[in-house]
Every structure is written in structure tokens, then in C-alpha cells.
């Protein structure tokens, strides 16, 4: 092992990555944990080591659980490289000389790019907020609840002035609860959960009754409802303003209402952040219940690409506790594949982990069904912008379909949508659904963007300074 060569790289230091790195290193592998943030924790435990929010009641006990994952990581001997942005994972070369089958990882750290070689990679890239394309969502003052939560965790910041929250899903309620604990102002919470979802979700309730989230979730929900104005059955939303947000307009029971607002926080669930897996060439499938693309994995998180596994929400939304267990499973399987753990040993070690994973996932189907966003919020009207980077409207996408564009990749070529710096993170799911609806087929049939590295932008200067040939690379590897 040298400075740029490890058995296993884990990408992302959220619950899945922290647990995977600790478990893999404890099993004797040389492990590097690569993470974009300066401190471990991912989004869910963001800034858990250094948040200025010292009153533990504000962020709640589930947040502080994150701190418990750090000790095992420290003790395991895994290298932790914070501030490292992974922009490429290249499959093992078929033709590598000397039988060295290595996966090459491109990363940027402290403004300089380098190539790392590993035998196995565990992608723990977590989740992204589902796009919430409503008219006016690009106005300053409108932001995702997830982004707002990051500001709270890292800087203790809450919005000042009239604040409206809108959408559905557990994270919306959690943020509302955290805001109320922190003494922030919430003028109204507009609940867009479709009424009919309750009917579909009820048969799944028995599973949810076993969920560890139930007690906590109910308590939190009741507390928010007691302290804030919650307006249910909202069927349409738009943000209005003259350069900045001024008014939130919503429809309830067929009539329109207006609320003055300086901040509108939108949220309608999270999706797997699959950009890196997709760009690596991992097969993916359409999940009809979660209404999203997810990489195809086996019981251990192994993908269709040799030596590449996934753990946590990046493989399908399961929540923080499930992610942690999935990270351990992926680590055990990687140890097995590298010859450090035999099959029986892997399976034995996995037993308690699987039991914990099952407990953590109990009730997931209920939540997925209940909080499935209504169609108008996933497939917006013609004049709504879907691709923010290139300012492409849903109407333009529909027009391209009429001209012969049959999927997101052709839409990219027709319209440039998805070609901006976000690489489709903000428009991909919407473009898929708009095209599918326009063609009258399943999203599974229209497919998803083929994403390309660098999955995060890097500077030309960094690229230019990369080692060039095999000789240069070997020199780097040996130093």
C-alpha cells in the first residue's frame, strides 16, 4: 500500500460510509474514506462534531446518534480524507499489465486532482431532495428544506421574516420541529400529501406499527401540529414575486389562497443520489413505489460493475439507520471478495446486521406510499421551468417529444436540459416523468440520463496537472 493505493475506498461519510469504512478496516483491509465535507456525518449528521447548535434538544436525539459512529471509525485505522470530491470512478481495466486489476478513482482535494487506485469501492453517496418544480421555484427566497436544514446544522441559521413550508414527507416535519425547537418563525405548513394516499397506505400500516420511527414520528408530528398552522390537502402551489419571493399561492379544496412570504421551504421526499454510480456504468432500474431510478444491487449492495458496491440511500431510500447497517453488509462482502473473510464468516457476521436492517426498514413501504408526491408536483405544467441550469420548461420538453425525442438522453441533445453543471440532479427525475407522461409509457421505458464524469465540476488547471501516462502514474503510486 502506498499513499494512493488502497484495498477499499468508501465514498461519502454519512451513516453508510462511516459504518462501512469502520467495518472494512476492522476486518484488516486498508481503507480510505473519501468525503466532500470538512467533517464527517453526511447530510443527516452534518457537522455533528462541530455544530454551533449545542442545545441537544434542538436537533434531537436521532441527530446526535451520528456521533456514536465516529469512535469506531477512529479506532478502525481507516484513513479519513475530508474535503475530497470524487469526480470519477473508472472500471477495472481488462488489460492491466501484470494482472493488477485496479479501479481508478479521480478526486480533488485542496484544489488539486489526483488518481487513486483501489481494488474495491463502496459508494455511499446518500440522497438528494426530489425536485419540486412549481411555478416560481427559481425565485430567490425559495429553497429546499434540506438546504435550510444544512444551514441550521452548520451555522445555527434559521430564516427571519415570514416563512412558509410546503410539501410532504418525514424530513419536512423534522425540519419544522427543529425550527420550532430553535424558536424560528413558521407562518404556515402547506401539506401537499394527496388525500388518496392514505387509502393506499393504510393496508401497509401494520408494518409501520413495528417501525422504530413510529413513536418518534408521531410525537414530532403532534408537536408541530400543536404549535404551527398546518394546512392540509393542498393541490397546487406557486411562488410569486418581483425578483424575490413575495407571495405563496396555494389551492385547497378548489379555491386559491395567498400568503405573504419571504422564505418558502419546499420538500417532497428524497431520491438516491445516483450520479456517480450512473457515470460508473452501474445498471439501474425504475422503482415504481418510490418513483425514482435506483441502481440495481444484490443483498450485499454489489452492483452490476465488478468491484463496485453501494450502501445507504444511494441504493434506494431506507433512512439513516438502515444505511448504517447496509454499510456494514457492503463492507463484509468487500472483505470476502478481497479474500479477507470466507463465505461462512461473512454470512455469520452478517446475521445480526441483517436483523437490524430489517428492523430499520419496517414501515418503509407505508411511508413511501403515504408520501408519494402527487402527479402535478412531479409532472409540472408547460410554463414551469424543469431544468434550472439551462432554463428549459416542461412545455419545451413536451414539444421535443412531439418532434421525436423519446427519452432524457435525446432531450439532452435537443434542448441541452441536464447539460449544465448540476448534471441533471435538479431536472432528471422531472424530465423522465414528463417524457413518460407525454408518450404515455412508463418511466422505465424512457430511461434516464447517461451521466458522464467528472460528476462534480473540476478546474482545467487541476485536470492539466494530473499524471499523464502509466509511467507517471507508477511514479505517483510508488512515492
Amino acid at each position, binding site marked *: 500500500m502506498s499513499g494512493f493505493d488502497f484495498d477499499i475506498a468508501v465514498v461519502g461519510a454519512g451513516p453508510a460510509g462511516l459504518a462501512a469504512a469502520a467495518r472494512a478496516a476492522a476486518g484488516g483491509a486498508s481503507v480510505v474514506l473519501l468525503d466532500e465535507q470538512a467533517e464527517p456525518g453526511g447530510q443527516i449528521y452534518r457537522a455533528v462534531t462541530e455544530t454551533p447548535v449545542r442545545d441537544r434538544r434542538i436537533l434531537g436525539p436521532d441527530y446526535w446518534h451520528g456521533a456514536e459512529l465516529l469512535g469506531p471509525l477512529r479506532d478502525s485505522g481507516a484513513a479519513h480524507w475530508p474535503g475530497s470530491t470524487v469526480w470519477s470512478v473508472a472500471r477495472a481495466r481488462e488489460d492491466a499489465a501484470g494482472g493488477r486489476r485496479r479501479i481508478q478513482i479521480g478526486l480533488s482535494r485542496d484544489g488539486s486532482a489526483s*488518481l487513486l487506485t483501489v481494488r474495491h469501492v463502496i459508494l455511499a453517496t446518500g440522497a438528494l431532495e426530489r425536485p419540486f418544480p412549481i411555478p416560481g421555484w427559481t425565485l430567490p427566497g425559495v429553497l429546499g428544506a434540506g438546504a435550510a436544514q444544512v444551514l441550521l446544522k452548520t451555522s445555527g441559521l434559521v430564516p427571519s421574516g415570514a416563512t412558509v413550508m410546503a410539501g410532504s414527507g418525514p424530513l419536512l416535519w423534522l425540519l419544522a420541529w427543529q425550527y420550532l425547537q430553535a424558536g424560528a418563525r413558521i407562518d404556515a405548513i402547506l401539506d401537499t400529501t394527496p388525500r388518496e394516499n392514505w387509502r393506499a397506505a393504510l393496508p401497509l400500516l401494520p408494518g409501520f406499527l413495528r417501525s422504530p420511527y413510529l413513536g418518534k414520528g408521531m410525537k414530532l408530528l403532534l408537536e408541530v401540529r400543536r404549535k404551527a398552522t398546518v394546512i392540509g390537502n393542498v393541490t397546487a402551489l406557486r411562488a410569486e414575486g418581483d425578483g424575490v419571493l413575495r407571495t405563496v399561492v396555494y389551492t385547497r379544496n378548489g379555491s386559491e389562497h395567498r400568503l405573504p412570504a419571504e422564505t418558502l421551504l419546499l420538500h417532497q421526499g428524497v431520491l438516491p443520489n445516483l450520479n456517480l454510480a450512473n457515470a460508473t456504468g452501474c445498471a439501474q432500474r425504475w422503482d415504481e413505489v418510490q418513483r425514482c431510478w435506483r441502481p440495481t444491487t444484490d443483498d450485499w449492495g454489489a452492483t452490476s460493475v465488478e468491484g463496485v458496491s453501494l450502501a445507504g440511500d444511494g441504493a434506494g431510500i431506507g433512512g439513516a439507520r438502515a444505511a448504517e447497517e447496509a454499510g456494514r453488509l457492503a463492507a463484509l462482502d468487500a472483505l470476502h471478495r478481497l479474500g479477507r473473510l470466507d463465505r461462512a464468516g461473512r454470512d455469520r457476521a452478517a446475521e445480526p446486521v441483517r436483523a437490524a436492517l430489517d428492523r430499520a426498514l419496517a414501515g418503509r413501504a407505508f411511508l413511501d406510499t403515504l408520501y408519494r408526491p402527487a402527479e402535478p408536483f412531479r409532472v409540472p405544467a408547460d410554463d414551469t421551468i424543469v431544468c434550472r441550469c439551462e432554463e428549459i420548461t416542461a412545455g419545451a420538453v413536451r414539444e421535443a417529444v412531439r418532434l421525436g425525442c423519446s427519452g432524457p438522453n435525446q432531450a439532452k441533445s435537443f434542448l441541452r436540459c441536464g447539460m449544465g453543471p448540476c448534471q441533471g440532479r435538479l431536472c432528471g427525475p422531472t424530465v423522465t416523468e414528463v417524457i413518460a407522461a407525454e408518450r404515455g409509457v412508463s418511466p422505465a421505458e424512457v430511461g434516464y440520463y447517461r451521466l458522464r464524469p467528472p460528476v462534480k465540476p473540476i478546474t482545467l488547471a487541476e*485536470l492539466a496537472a*494530473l499524471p499523464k501516462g502509466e509511467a507517471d502514474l507508477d511514479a505517483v503510486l510508488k512515492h
Partner: protein
Amino acid sequence: MSETGTASGPSSSPSSGPGTAGFRPDVIVIGGGLHGCSAALHLSMRGVRVLVLEKDHVARHASGVNAGGVRQLGRHVAEVPLSVASMELWHRIGELVDDDCGFESHGQIKVAETEEELDGLQARVDELRALGFGHEETIGRDELRALVPAIADHCVGALVSRRDGAAIPFRTTFAFRRKAIALGARFQEGGAVTRLSRRGGLWTVETAEGGRFEAPVVVNCAGAWADRIAAQVGEPVPLEVIAPMLMITARVPPFIKPVVGAAGRTLSFKQFPNGTVLIGGGLLGRAERDENRTELDFSQVSVNARTVWDLFPIMRGATVVRSWAGIEARMPDQIPVIGPSGTEPDLFHAFGFSAHGFQLGPIVGRITADLITGGSTDLPIAPFRIGRFAA
């Protein structure tokens, strides 16, 4: 062509225009890239009924994702007559396909970094003059700076072809497809050709999705897969599958109009009207044609980035947002195969453009149509005959 064929296959996808059921084509074109679409267009303009079979979707590979250079500059001398004729079509592309294809003509420039390189470029100009072509000329330091103010100080001059330019590849290929359909051509997308056979003067083409199509004439425009079609009729060719890489930057303020290459290095550099900058030139990744997939080689992408660093100091702070590669066919002598089959009548080839076929698209379609409808063409295509590889 007195006989006509029949088609029976899966119903057409919604994007493919009219369906193919019951359609009796005169010509089947295999491959829906620019060359296949161009052949379909030129044949349709002459009233020939054409069916295009495309294994994925039109412009899925090299035709949709190439750098879009419309270049006469620096071509192999055998290609020059075709390239010059194609350039005339490009400057009237709207008349041909009812779409400007995003074509803009601000010239192409090949920069010399040393006096020796400039001398080499002048020798090239002299060679072309002797052959009767005057579209390339050398320019010195001052004119280079007038045309490309952002060029690095050490560059001493350049070769320029002033009528060259660039277009948008996917849009171009789709425009050819759309116009061909408007003139009666049909497209069947999805389903690779698995079998090609000929009996009683009629070709039968079978596809992976169970399609079975018949026509008196077949054109092989199958790009990186064309050797497999040729092999079916006993014409093996030494085709190499390559994956030329490209990258694009985030938007920067407009600073350059012409497309720029370099005499001593691999480079194609141009800025789009929206401010993004495309960097390519032919450094190769890896192609896996059976999986429709390419793998980038960042140590090579880095070579390209270094070239831009050296030649365009203004770009040093730019951000690269995406890189990719197309799947293309390269022949050992770097020039394409164009013309009739050497083993079978009523079969024509147009493939192996070796990463510089985009500009030739409009004219090669016309040549193929000439060969099919008139038995000959007025352009010199002998250097491109498929038989040149026979042992």
C-alpha cells in the same frame, strides 16, 4: 430497379415517423447515423423508397456526440475533393434539410508553436496548390492574433481554412432524418441487424427484435459495427473501434470564434454561442461496442487539458463540467470505405470515417445516391474502395 421489397417487423416507435408495416423499400440503409440519414435523404430526393434500420436510435453514437467540426482543413489529400464539394452543401445546408443545423462559419485554424511547424504547414499549402486546391493558407503572428486574440504568446502562425466552421451534430443528424422522412423515407429504430442475405436479386435483412425486411439494394452505414455487416457478405475489413474523448466547460464570456487545432498536438477547441467551450481532438478512451459503452481515460483527458493550458492562458481558471466519448470506426489508413461492395452486387458501403466523417456527411450521402441511381459518381472515390484491404 424493377423489383421492390417488403417489410415486416415490429411497429415503429412513436418517434420514428410513419410505421414500416407493409412498406416496400427500394433500398435498405443499415445505420441511422449522419451518413445513413444523408444517404436516405439524397435517395428520397430522387424518389427512391428508403428504409433506415437503426439498432439504437438515430444519432445515438458518433453522429450525435462528436465535436461538430465542419472542416476541410488538414484533410488527407484523397478526401479533399469530397470535402470541398461537401463544404458547398454545408453553406446551403438550410436549403437541403430545412434547418441551419447550428452551422456557423468562422473558419478553422491550425496553430504552429514553432517555426518548424509553420514550415510544415506551408509545405502542406504548397502540396494542395499543386493539386489545384486553394482553400488552405498560412498566416503569420499578427493575423493569428487578429483572428484568435486569446492565443498564447509563443504561437508563431497558423494554417487557416476560412470557409470552415462547426455545427451541432445531433441537430444536424436529426434534420437529415426529418427531411428524409418528409420525402417518404421510413425509419425503424431499435433492433440491430443480425443477418444479411441475398437470394434471387433480393436482400433479406433480419434484426434482433424479430424484424425481417427485404429490398433490392442495401447500404452499409453501420459505423463502428459496419465490419460485422461486411463480414456477412465475405468482405472482412480491419476496422478498429475507437472512443475519441471530448470535454466541455462551464460558460465563460465569449472570446473566440474560429475552431482551433494545433500542428504539433492533438486538439480541437471551440466556443459555443452559449459560452461553453468544447475541448477534444481525438485522444482516445476505451470503447466497449457490445455494451454501447465507453470508458474515459483521464490521464489522456489530462493531456488535452494541458494543451489548452499552454495555448489558451485565458482558460486556466475554467471549470470542466462533463466529458464523454463516442464510438467510432477507424481504418488502418485513416480514410473511410466508400463505394460498392467487392463481393456482392447491389450492396454499397459508407463507413470507417476515422473520427472525421461529420463534415463529409452531406456529400457522401449524395455519392451513395449517385452510385445507386446512376451507377457512377463524378467525385473520385477510388481511394476509398473496400478492396484495398484485401491481402
